[in-house]
């Protein structure tokens, strides 16, 4: 019994193959998924996603989004999924900077959606940076 993992971002299909297990950064904390897991839909927070593929643990930094878990399949929909070598720390830091500046500008307009979006950008980039640093050590 295997588990099919599919990671999709708006830009591309990042990964699609059978894996042995998946660890997701769920909204209520990290979530381990093995084959025959109960059906579940969870929202994801920016963090670290791990899966075991052909005996190798692969780790990706993911942004917010959500995941659908069925007994044979895990679908991860997220706005970012990057491997360690794909993360550019500097541009991530710049993204945070920009988002924070914008955030200050729109805070007065009370546009809840815009604020939520910018906070999403910040936490996403922060997750990417901490992920990158962790790997360097």
């Amino acid at each position, binding site marked *: 019994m295997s588990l099919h993992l599919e990671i*999709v971002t708006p830009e591309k299909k990042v990964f699609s193959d059978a894996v042995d297990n998946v660890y997701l950064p769920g*909204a209520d904390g990290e979530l381990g998924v093995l084959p025959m897991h109960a059906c*579940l839909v969870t*929202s994801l927070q920016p963090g670290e996603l791990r899966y075991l593929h052909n005996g190798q643990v692969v780790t990706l930094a993911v942004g917010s989004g*959500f995941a659908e878990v069925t007994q044979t399949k895990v679908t991860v929909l997220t706005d970012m999924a990057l491997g360690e070598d794909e993360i550019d720390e500097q541009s991530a830091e710049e993204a945070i900077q920009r988002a924070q500046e914008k955030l200050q500008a729109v805070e007065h307009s009370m546009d809840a*959606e815009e604020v939520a979006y910018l906070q999403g950008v910040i936490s996403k980039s922060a997750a990417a940076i901490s992920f990158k640093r962790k790997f360097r050590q």
Partner: protein
Amino acid sequence: MANLRDIRRRIKSVKNTAQITRAMQLVAAAKMKKAQDQALAGRAYAERLTQVLFDIRKNFSEESHPFLEHREGNRELVLVISTDKGLCGPLNTNLARKIRAQTSPTADIVTVGRKLRILCEKLGKNVIADFTVRDPVPFSQTRPIAKFLSQQFLDGNYDKVSIAFTSFVNTLRQEPEVVTLLPIQAHRDGEEQAFEQIGTGFSVQQHQNDPDRDFTFEPSPAEVLAAILPLYVNYEVFQAHVESRASEHSARMVAMKSATDNANKFIKELTLEYNKLRQGAITAELLEITTAMKAME
């Protein structure tokens, strides 16, 4: 011999035209590649999103979220995505025909793109808003459009929101389409094709083994729905734009290519005629000279 000069002038002007259309073809081809890549890349995400919504549809009802609410009444709002520039074949005309066939004549219109905005205004439709979207399509510019549309729906100004756009099939084929955006048609049990998917004619798959799966939701069903549904609306709107843009550049590329081909064919024909005339003129002149020489002998 005025005829000769006329032909020469024609050849020159046709050559100029061919040069221009060829340049436009090259520009469109470059943009087309980018736009097509973007359209194809976004499809996987939109499809998965649709599939997830379909899978969990039995776990929520019409009351769970305002986006799902079906209302009596037929006040319709249509987002029309056309092109800013012309010279892209029958793209906009086809879309206009589709809109006429598939939406109510009293529907109000929101437009993106100049071409059909002008047409809608001419036809006396009520255009309530107009947006501009850059090329290539940035997500940040379609978000306000999605927000505007859902706000109109939530405020109860309209009972149904649709999108009219051109779906990209391949470089030679683009299909005009009208799909319903709101209310999201997820919960309607028994309907095989409850979802209309933008772009691909993608249809959701029924899982045969376990049709009535009960999903657990984390943190809670309401929170998950509140996250997924706006995302779905945002992405449908975005994908519709990306598809339209890919269609536009493809159509323009093809139109300009056939224009260039026609011009080149025309040049060939004109050159042939020109040479024939020139040859005729030379023959006639030679004839005159020889006749004159014969007369002198």
